[in-house]
């Protein structure tokens, strides 16, 4: 969609070209082409089973693509001389052996890429894991501490690129805010930050750019703002003691009216002034008149539903035709 500015260097850029992954006759990732640029947080959205985790495993060279390619700074992950110094990743909370201490986990990773041992203390400090906690076995860690350890592991090599799969999954409000601020500051330092989440509200707050996929295919690749503007329709929430009458009047003037979950009318078409004037002309009282835009959450839910319907139609084409 929006190509964005062409950067002089591809350093730190993740580029997928016609990336495809099939498991048997199931296509998990389907000719996916996108670029994740440095200096901003890019959100990776998609319903469960859309292929987000598979795509991330393909980027990290853990799974081999059936066709197409994906590179980081122009190179395949497997060709990076010291991968942890180029790319930090967090796939899931289970990347740590429960019987090993956080310190040993990080010390091992540091050793694997010739990273000085003192960096372990630095990242522990950075993510706020106290040294005493880091010496304990990771099995006893809370979800939040485990996630901090995962982020510490991702940051061990001071990488230009960060790839995080559902980093805020299961975290409390404080943990979510911490990750959000950290991701933003890392992007502000010029790094590439690519994170997946199913929490739309969170993406709306954290990501400047969005790559949206459904059923392994690219749905959108655009700024978060443009995505919402393009996909969310402006509407007005209207409350009246006589909603049926108002609804009939509005529909007669070509407006699309639906009943919102709150019991208010969700009116698309006429702006609030027109609605207010219409009600006054017909002597109807108005208790609420709120201009609104659908949130990323709603946009995304609508897109997911489209994808589901599309899938249903693809499976039962004769029914869809009827």
């Amino acid at each position, binding site marked *: 969609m929006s190509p964005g500015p062409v950067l002089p260097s591809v350093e730190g850029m993740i580029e997928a070209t016609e990336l495809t992954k099939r498991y048997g006759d199931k296509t998990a990732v389907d000719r996916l082409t996108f670029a994740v640029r440095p200096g901003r947080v890019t959100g990776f959205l998609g319903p469960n089973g859309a292929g987000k985790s598979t795509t991330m*495993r393909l980027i*990290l*060279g*853990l*799974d*081999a693509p059936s066709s197409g390619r994906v590179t980081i700074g122009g190179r395949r*992950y*497997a060709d*990076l*001389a*010291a*991968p*942890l*110094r180029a*790319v930090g*990743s967090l*796939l*899931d909370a*289970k*990347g*740590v*052996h*429960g*019987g*090993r*201490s956080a310190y*040993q*986990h990080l*010390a*091992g*990773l540091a*050793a*694997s*890429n*010739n*990273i*000085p041992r003192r960096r372990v203390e630095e990242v522990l400090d950075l993510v706020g894991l106290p040294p005493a906690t880091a010496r304990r076995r990771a099995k006893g860690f809370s979800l939040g501490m485990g996630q901090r350890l995962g982020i510490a*592991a991702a940051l061990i090599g*001071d990488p*230009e690129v960060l790839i995080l799969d559902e980093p805020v999954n299961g975290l409390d409000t404080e943990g979510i805010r911490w990750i959000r601020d950290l991701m933003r500051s890392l992007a502000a330092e010029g790094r590439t930050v690519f994170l997946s989440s199913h929490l739309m509200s969170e993406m709306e707050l954290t990501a400047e750019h969005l790559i949206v996929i459904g059923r392994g295919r690219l749905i959108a690749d655009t700024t978060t703002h443009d995505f919402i503007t393009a996909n969310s329709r402006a509407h007005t929430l209207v409350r009246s003691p006589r909603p049926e009458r108002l609804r009939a009047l509005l529909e007669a003037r070509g407006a699309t009216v639906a009943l919102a979950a709150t019991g208010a009318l969700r009116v698309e078409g006429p702006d609030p002034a027109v609605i207010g004037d219409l009600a006054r002309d017909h002597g109807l009282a108005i208790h609420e008149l709120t201009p609104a835009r659908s949130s990323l959450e709603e946009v995304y839910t609508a897109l997911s539903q489209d994808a589901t319907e599309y899938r249903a139609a693809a499976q039962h084409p004769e029914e869809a035709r009827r």
Partner: protein
Amino acid sequence: MTTPTPARAGYPQAFTYEWIKFRSVRSTVWTTLATALAPVVGAVFVAATGSLRADDTVLGGSLTLSVVAQMLAAVVGALLVTGEYGSGTLRTTFTANPRRATVLGAKATLIASVMYAVGLLSCTVAFLLGDALLPSGKYAQGEPFPALFGVAGCFAVAGLLGLAVGTLVRHSAGAVTTVIGLLLLPSLFGPLFGDARRWVAGVSPTAALEKLTQTSDATADAVGSLGPWPSLWLVAGYTAVLLLTAAGVLRRRDT
């Protein structure tokens, strides 16, 4: 980012990583300690109970439990990789070093050198203990050198065999069962094969170990007439083939 040390994730780094992982998890450390302890306990037990047969050697008698230790060595080898599959850390390992053959090579060096050292130390101690505790002059001494180096080699090869099987099977329980079966079944079912027994039982890693320990159990009827050292080379040979196969599978497999 500028870094003072050269950015590199090669074989020496992979080896250090494997060493840190090996010594920071209880299962591998304790199983290795059990491997070291078994031959020593066996030597003391045999001497205390006087259960040595008249035609046995001091070396063979003292190393009675070395076969058990060899199985434990194979279990540690399997755990080295199945533990990573089970806990999901293999993904972490491969993101740290995507050159999978290098990672497997580092694991192989680690298990082979640890088990060689453990085997040599523990079997030497077991022999010295047995020699001191058994009544002198009653049994033939046996030739401890260079046989003990071969015994240590048997431990190293068993660890590598476990590593190869673990890589192919992936699950701890399955891999441990398979590798113990590989070590145990040939001598268990060998007699069922009649005259072919010496070939079936003779090619197993335990047969090579028994021949090297010069135990009276290692008769030509039971484990074939192939000499102790050629037996060890044979076992090392097919273990190498299995390990290369495992490396090939590991490189192609999605993780």
